[in-house]
């Protein structure tokens, strides 16, 4: 294995800016489907080298750090097009040193992971389709010729359970519940209880009994609907290229705020530095109902002549792109958002949303009406609108917030979407 500092110095002497991104992951996973249970342990490494010279950028990656990787990166650099915006972030702002976001060590958690899994798949009053539990430790290091020398060790524990109700001729849609944290929860009771409650809600299915002007999205449904659309709509790259429905200072005509927050406690999406080694910070995307900011990595900040926001995301396989961390929604809080409402928990088609216009047409697969007589499931409701409609239409939020999905939110009551 080559020495990182030695190779960085070698590249610097040859006139290159160079950045090495190193990813080491140890993980454990147990999964179950209707029939079989499988377990997996793995130890993987990845190295991504970016070199820049005279405005040309070259990139290469591999699972080992070797001379061939450096030669491939230099070769790619020679064939690349010149672009004055290709540059590594300057050393003055770069992260230096090690940080930890480590809730557990992988070597010590095998028994706890197995125990959690065994509790997760204990019999329920529903038909269990699949379950998984995963624990990982990741170590990300970024070293550059420009003075960045950052390392972060983090942990992530996630679990999911998928079930439906299957009896006689009745088969309800499957519902999945998920939890994720940097720490291992004591037990899976929260997601098991939530799953049973939701399946109970959709056991009895009726047609939509009346017209609804508002719909309540659970945190899971909020994340599914808007995560991808927010990441695309608030990307500085897309703003520069004119392919986002958002505009600077756009008035959404309500009082919500939407913050990109990399420091949410126990969230697996929290980070101390971005994919270029720049220290993370909170970025308000929407403040008091007005669009306030966009997210940039170094390249797009230079191209747009703005200050970067340390929002580079990446894996070792590719060059940095722009990425969100945790999206925190702040809205007027109410105790009973879901009373006498159409509540949506699972949706089909979120990945078919059009990222340029922000438009979506989603079909509910798990939704119910919270009426005075109790809950009744409704099937195949189509929700049509756009990310602008969604954000403008947020009326209120419940007080219990979930952080598992990368969107920190309670139940959201949203008006202004087409509901058919």
């Amino acid at each position, binding site marked *: 294995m080559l020495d990182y500092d030695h190779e960085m110095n070698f590249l610097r002497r040859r006139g290159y800016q160079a950045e090495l991104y190193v990813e080491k992951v140890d993980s454990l996973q*147990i999964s179950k489907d209707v029939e079989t249970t499988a377990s997996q342990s793995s130890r993987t490494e990845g190295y991504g080298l970016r070199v820049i010279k005279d405005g040309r950028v070259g990139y290469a990656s591999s699972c080992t750090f070797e001379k061939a990787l450096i030669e491939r990166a230099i070769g790619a650099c020679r064939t*690349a097009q010149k672009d004055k915006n290709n540059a590594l972030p300057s050393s003055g702002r770069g992260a230096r040193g090690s940080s930890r976001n480590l809730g557990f060590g992988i070597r010590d958690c095998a028994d706890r992971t197995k125990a959690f899994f065994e509790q997760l798949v204990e019999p329920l009053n529903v038909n269990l389709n*699949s379950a998984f539990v995963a624990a990982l430790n990741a170590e990300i290091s970024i070293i550059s010729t420009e003075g960045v020398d950052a390392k972060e060790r983090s942990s992530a524990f996630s679990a999911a359970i998928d079930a*439906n109700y299957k009896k006689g001729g009745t088969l309800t849609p499957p519902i999945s519940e998920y939890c994720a944290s940097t720490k291992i929860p004591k037990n899976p009771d929260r997601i098991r209880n939530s799953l049973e409650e939701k399946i109970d809600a959709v056991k009895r299915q009726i047609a939509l009994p009346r017209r609804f002007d508002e719909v309540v999205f659970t945190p899971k449904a909020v994340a599914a609907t808007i995560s991808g659309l927010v990441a695309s709509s608030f990307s500085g790259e897309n703003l520069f290229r004119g392919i986002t429905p958002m505009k600077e200072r756009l008035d959404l005509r309500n009082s919500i705020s939407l913050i990109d927050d990399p420091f949410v406690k126990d969230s697996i999406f929290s980070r101390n530095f971005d994919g270029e080694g720049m220290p993370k910070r909170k970025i308000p995307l929407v403040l008091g109902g007005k669009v306030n900011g966009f997210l940039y990595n170094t390249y797009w900040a230079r191209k747009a002549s703005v200050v970067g926001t340390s929002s580079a995301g990446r894996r070792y396989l590719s060059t940095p792109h722009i990425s969100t961390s945790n999206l925190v929604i702040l809205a007027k809080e109410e105790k009973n958002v879901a009373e006498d409402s159409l509540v949506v928990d699972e949706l089909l088609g*979120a990945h*078919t949303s*059009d990222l340029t216009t922000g438009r979506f047409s989603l079909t509910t697969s798990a939704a119910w009406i919270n009426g005075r007589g109790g809950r009744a499931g409704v099937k195949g409701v189509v929700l049509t609108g756009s990310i602008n409609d969604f954000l403008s239409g947020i009326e209120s939020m419940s007080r219990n917030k979930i952080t598992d999905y990368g969107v920190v939110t309670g139940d959201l009551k949203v008006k202004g979407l087409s509901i058919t």
Partner: protein
Amino acid sequence: MDRIFNSLGGLGADFASIRHEKTTALTIKMLDGILKVDVNDNTRGYMLKVLVEGSYRYRSVVRAPGLEDLRLARAFGIRGGSDSAPETRPVKGAVSVGLGGGIEKGAEEKMLDVKDLRKRIMGHVKKIKTLTITYGETIFHKEYSDSRGSHIVQDFPRSALVVSAVAKEGNVIATAVEHCATNRGYIFDVADQEAILQRIKRKIGSQLHGRSPKSKEYEVVLGPSATGIFCHEAFGHLAEGDLAQEGFLLGMKGKKIADSLVSIADYPVMPDKLAAGFAMYDDEGVKGRAVDILERGVVKEFMTNRHFAGKFGTAPTGNARAEDFRAPDIVRMRNTYIKRGKMSKEELISSVKDGYLILSPNGGHTTSEGTFQFGIGEGYRIERGELKEGLRLGVGMSGHTLKTLAMIDGVSKDFGVRSAFCGKNGQAVPVSFGGPYIRIRSLKVGGHA
């Protein structure tokens, strides 16, 4: 590897296999006139799969696995599974699909091909605001070995092109995405670039001047791409062994659920050069065979891995696939199609009084209970058998698989295929899908209330 296989008995393991993969990947992206290499990867790794106490235990590493990896794989697992070692003869196989001259070109020449394509598109299609062209190739070397003595080597390429255009006219925005891939050489040599241009122009035109329909049920004709995504998303997933068991399709084996016009099959490879779901052997070392899932409207069989083949009492179909060496194998589709019929597409379209022609989907999703949803990238209103205005962005179609299959009453002889990536359980694998034009008596097309 022999040391690992010879040590199984001593560690209480009944069976083991090792997948060794080496891949080189290159992605060249041209974003609004700026060219760069986005991915330039050279990776190798191993997945060790061990059968212990009835369940499989996996371990993935980036260097050749040793006895310590076997011990670690064995140590981490849950007891009480029901799998047993496969009772099969050893399989020896070697498959090599040549790269073709195009793929062997250097990156600089490939960049020129991308540049040329951009020039052609920008010259031909007006009103384009942004254009992204992505060329990607992966050269696969896959080896499978197991403790029964099987050894299979597969070498094949995948070369793909994605063109994404955004156009604007006044306040109206249109997006067109074209995606094609091949396992038979260099995509620039295989794909019809003129046809790509024409489709982009057509899609943009249909959206810029299109309307959003009132959301309700309509009579619909699906073109080959849309038929393919229906076949893959709405039906194909339900016929994967694990989801067939989880959902309702297993209980319908032998039952007629669609008209005799409708037959659906999944293949390990397809003769069509744009069908890029190559899986001659799967990741359990099983040689792939055709699976006739629906034969003249009757549910006939399911896609399986060894476990579900044993459970269903059938020969394995070769559908056990993993994204790469880091992932466990699960039941996946390969190349999935509705078979041709006898009508012409003109006959189908001209028979519709008030409905839609859907040519191009925009992804889709289905549940194990059979509810599905697809986005629409290109569609046209049909009025008294004639094509009218296009569909705006943000319209989808949805329904339930069984109900929709039973509503298919026309199948054309015109046929088309498309390749893409399919996601399941966090893994993406290359697949292809397609079929003829099909007429569906009633399907919900979603727009405004």
